[in-house]
């Protein structure tokens, strides 16, 4: 007999309670991004720098390939390797593409299809919703920044047989990708909430990521003040590398400005998002 013919049947189990109300959003988001068209190409291109640097670490530990370190000076030290890896232009560019790819529709599509009442009529706070959505972008960014960083340390151990790595370098390997990923995830999510037009939002995100560096460069050239580089994501990433890996100051402002700015901006953007969600919820 069909269930419909039997009438409504209840469920006698116990609903789960817990502090991880956002976790189903993360799991579903990971699946959805994985199934997107062209996701494998984006993942491959984002992971490609890891292959190059993995090969470089292998080469460094082979006496017959030692000449390479003379050719590429940055490979001479561990600091140089990791700083170059994390600030590698192709990796930085692909991380921004990945953030846009995984996050441009996260809130925008919910606004477009008016899905928010479906979320907020459940035991899910606005912070749970935000954390769930943020963690999707965060997850993918860490997969291609923190995970390769740790794998490079493992490769170094594998090829050299020694794990001689300074505490500061280890902290840099852990915190550099965390700060960058947190910032890119917050910015992408904030931009995603600006409109229900998902195509427009995708374009805006790409414009912000591609042209912010040029805009900062233009202001710096006209006004001759290095502080305008704080408006550039790429320049901030380079400066953050200098902060964590001690590779020297690049521009005329204190190194700590960059981590403070990136973390501060991320928190402000999340705060603004919370206010926006509160408004949307009352109109739901």
């Amino acid at each position, binding site marked *: 007999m069909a269930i419909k013919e039997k*009438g409504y049947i209840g469920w006698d189990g116990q609903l789960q309670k817990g502090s991880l109300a956002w976790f189903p959003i993360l799991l579903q988001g990971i699946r959805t991004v994985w199934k997107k068209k062209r996701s494998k190409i984006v993942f491959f291109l984002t992971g490609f720098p890891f292959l190059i640097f993995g090969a470089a670490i292998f080469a460094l530990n082979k006496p017959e390939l030692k000449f390479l370190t003379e050719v590429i000076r940055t490979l001479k030290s561990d600091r140089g390797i990791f700083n170059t890896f994390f600030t590698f232009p192709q990796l930085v560019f692909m991380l921004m593409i990945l953030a846009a790819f995984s996050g441009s529709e996260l809130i925008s599509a919910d606004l477009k299809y008016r899905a928010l009442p479906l979320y907020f009529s459940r035991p899910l706070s606005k912070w749970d919703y935000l954390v769930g959505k943020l963690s999707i972008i965060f997850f993918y960014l860490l997969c291609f920044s923190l995970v390769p960083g740790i794998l490079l340390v493992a490769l170094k151990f594998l090829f050299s047989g020694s794990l001689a790595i300074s505490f500061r370098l280890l902290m840099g390997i852990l915190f550099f990708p965390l700060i960058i990923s947190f910032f890119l995830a917050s910015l992408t999510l904030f931009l995603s909430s600006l409109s229900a037009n998902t195509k427009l939002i995708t374009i805006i995100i790409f414009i912000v990521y591609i042209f912010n560096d040029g805009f900062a460069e233009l202001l710096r050239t006209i006004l001759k003040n290095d502080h305008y580089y704080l408006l550039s994501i790429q320049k901030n990433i380079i400066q953050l590398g200098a902060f964590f890996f001690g590779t020297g100051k690049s521009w005329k402002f204190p190194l700590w400005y960059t981590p403070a700015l990136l973390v501060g901006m991320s928190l402000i953007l999340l705060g603004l998002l919370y206010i926006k969600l509160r408004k949307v919820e009352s109109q739901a």
Partner: protein
Amino acid sequence: MEDRQEEILRLENISFSYPKVQALKSVRLTLEDGGLYGLLGPNGAGKTTLMKVILGFLKPQTGDGRILGYPLRDSILEIRRRIGYMPESDCLIPGMDAVTETAYLGRISGLPPTEAIKRAHEVLYYVGLGEERYRKVDTYSTGMKQKLKLAQALVHDPQLLLLDEPTSGMDPNGRREMLDLIKDIAGKGRISIIVSSHLLPDIEAVCRSVLIMNKGEIVAQEQVQALNQSSANVFEVKFTGDTERFLAELSRLDCRIAEWERGISKLVLPISETPRTLFSLAQRNKVQIRHFKRVQSTLEDAFMKAIGESNGY
């Protein structure tokens, strides 16, 4: 199964104002467990605001209440865990099939992963989407989306179901199916239901009790049957002659002409008056009554009466 409360909802002096309009004015409301309540009212009466307050989307400026035994102001997540909500607007999570969406929302409500999938299949079969459950929800027709919204509201087996315009946009068959589903769910006595609708026949067809709202207040709360009886003094009349003075005198007696249709008026007499009064007045004013028939009163009459009284007519 958790402990059932005798009262599923108690609101005390709930008020809420938008910047330019007071949407709820000291609303007092008590609903018993296991009931099927219709929430009626004209546009802007405060029905949607009341639902938003129950769901915690809006925080009332004054007043307090308990829903399913939990304080309204402090335990909104606990309340939401036990409520199923079917919004009026067309809403869905894009890019998913119906099973994935329903299971996903069930997971957020607290269902364990395997149970969420199992339960999603069950409720989708129940609402009649069994064959279409693997289709992307973006491709669903309006009627199918309505059923999907009901399925997602039921997936975690709530104690209280809030249905906002459940038959909106559905064809007659779909509408009948939806009303049958609502009656069936209520019939099991496991879930209390509040149905908000502007379609009086829908409310009359499924609900035992009705709440009528107007201008932010609950103006009537009664059993549908009792409400119908209270509006039993409704007549169809047709008259000719000098009707101006006649109508003025009727008006002074608190009689209301509720509707005109091809020269036939629908007349509502106060409970204290009898048809004899009408005939006496007609004779005195030299008005001929050409048609006179007591009409089977409907919820619509009761609704008009309640709204009319609250407007001071």
